[in-house]
């Protein structure tokens, strides 16, 4: 599906937003804060998180404690990584080494068309 607004397509706008460095940083930090907020209660009360996990009956009881401790801290570490911008992968291809590996399909599909947009957003 393609919505055209003159020479600018919806796709080009979305792609422009996707490579907008300030926007990506804001969204990344917001997501990191969500992760850290979600991990707080689990880190402070790991025993109660283990109870909740036991009630899901997915894991054998023997490993529930370890899994609940690990998951709570994994959430916290991922949040810190997102905010600090270290070990961040995937959606941040715009300004990373090997970024061309992630970016090339869009470049190939629309060479030049959103080069101007990229100038605006970068």
């Amino acid at each position, binding site marked *: 599906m393609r919505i055209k607004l003159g020479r600018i397509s919806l796709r080009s706008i979305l792609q422009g937003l996707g490579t907008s460095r300030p926007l990506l940083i804001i969204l990344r930090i917001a997501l990191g804060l969500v992760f850290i907020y979600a991990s707080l209660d689990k*880190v402070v*009360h*790991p*025993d*109660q*998180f*283990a*109870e909740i*996990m*036991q009630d899901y009956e997915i894991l054998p*009881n*023997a*490993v*529930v*404690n*370890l899994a*609940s*401790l*690990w998951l*709570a*801290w*994994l959430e*916290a*570490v*991922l949040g810190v*990584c997102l905010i600090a911008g270290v*070990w961040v*992968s995937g959606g941040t291809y715009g300004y990373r080494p*090997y970024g061309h*590996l992630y970016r090339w399909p869009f470049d190939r599909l629309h060479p030049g068309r959103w080069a101007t947009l990229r100038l605006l957003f970068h």
Partner: protein
Amino acid sequence: MKTLVIAILRELLRIAGIAVASLTLAIAANTMHPMNLPLLVTKGQPGVPNWVLERFKEVDPQGAMGLVNNPEVLVIDTRDEPDFRKQHIPRAVSLPYHGFNQRYPQFAESVSKDKPLLLYCYGTDCGLAARVGKRLITKGYTELTILRRGIEAWKAANLPLETSEEYNEN
């Protein structure tokens, strides 16, 4: 192609790094945490550390009958409230696991910390009594006894039960 393989390897290395870092942090934090959960649950149930288990006394239904007849002991039903209203052990009061935080302030006002408590829950594999007991121990209660296999064992031993006055079948 070669750069792609390197990029993928770098991603995997990152994932492994984050996994190892968080696991190390989790284990280190757990040793300093007052709960200090055992990493592998070998006895009891998840979320209830061994030092809490050691502070519980356990009784069978006959032993519990002696406590129920002792007016000094407070009997606590940790099951959900509709089940409590339907049928419960004589003299029991309801302090359900689901809703503990709402009910606890009222409970703490009326029950002193050194009061002997007998807790019970549904039965086989039921951990609600241990979960409520753990919360009571962290709040400062000291004399806790748990009825082994809960109200199921009590019923199996043909001991008396009570129904709340306000209970009706509808």
